[in-house]
């Protein structure tokens, strides 16, 4: 069964499987870019032991789908896939993979960058960081998909 374009999953992520469904193997796409986010060993001076990711799964999948739609509007030639892992992740494991494919490299790079910025803005997923000496819930952006300023910020970063 081919991988879905968007997913929130407890299973390890496969960049190969996602690339296979995003990129056109017959030659329509001349560019494929990807982003992989990994669990980092240090955060704000803390020695990270592992991360536990939690999601509001139904809304998180809708959020990822919304980002796919936004990418389609911004870069009509680009195709996008994004998988986010949840549950307990060890250092160095992939928490998110994004694949963007397009006839030309510019749109593929932009779509990829835009997607990770938007994930951090609007997708209801949380990191629970377990470190040497304690644990803490990380809190970033107040999620509001209708916040145009946030969306434009992500777009500017993507096109920088």
């Amino acid at each position, binding site marked *: 069964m081919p991988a879905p374009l968007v997913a929130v999953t407890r299973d390890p992520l496969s960049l190969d499987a996602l690339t296979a469904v995003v990129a056109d193997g017959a030659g329509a796409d001349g560019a494929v870019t990807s982003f992989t986010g990994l669990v980092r060993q240090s955060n704000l001076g803390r020695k990270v032991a592992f991360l536990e990711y939690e999601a509001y799964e139904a809304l998180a999948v809708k959020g990822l789908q919304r980002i796919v739609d936004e990418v389609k509007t911004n870069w009509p030639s680009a195709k996008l896939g994004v998988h986010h892992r949840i549950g307990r992740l060890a250092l160095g494991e992939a*928490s998110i993979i994004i694949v963007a494919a397009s006839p030309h490299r510019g749109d593929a790079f932009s779509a990829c960058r835009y997607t*990770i910025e938007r994930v951090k803005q609007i997708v209801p997923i949380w990191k629970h960081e377990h470190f040497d000496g304690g644990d803490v819930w990380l809190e970033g952006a107040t999620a509001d998909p209708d916040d145009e300023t946030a969306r434009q910020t992500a777009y500017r970063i993507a096109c920088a």
Partner: protein
Amino acid sequence: MRVTVRLFARLRDLAGAGEMVREVPAPATIEQVWRSLVKDMPALGDYERTMSVALNTDYSRMTAAVKDGDEVAFLPPVSGG
């Protein structure tokens, strides 16, 4: 009427549960569900300025009306990626 309340991340930890059924007088808005929750669990109150809300698995606003059987979710600032 009864609504299902979902809480996530630190809000869930503070409340000690991620899902609960709450009795609220009809008619009610999400804000009224939140007020009744904070009355019972004052520690949640600090999140009012920074949280997002969802109704039946779509983002919503505090002013939205809720019906019997709805699912209301309160979401701390997100940190995915």
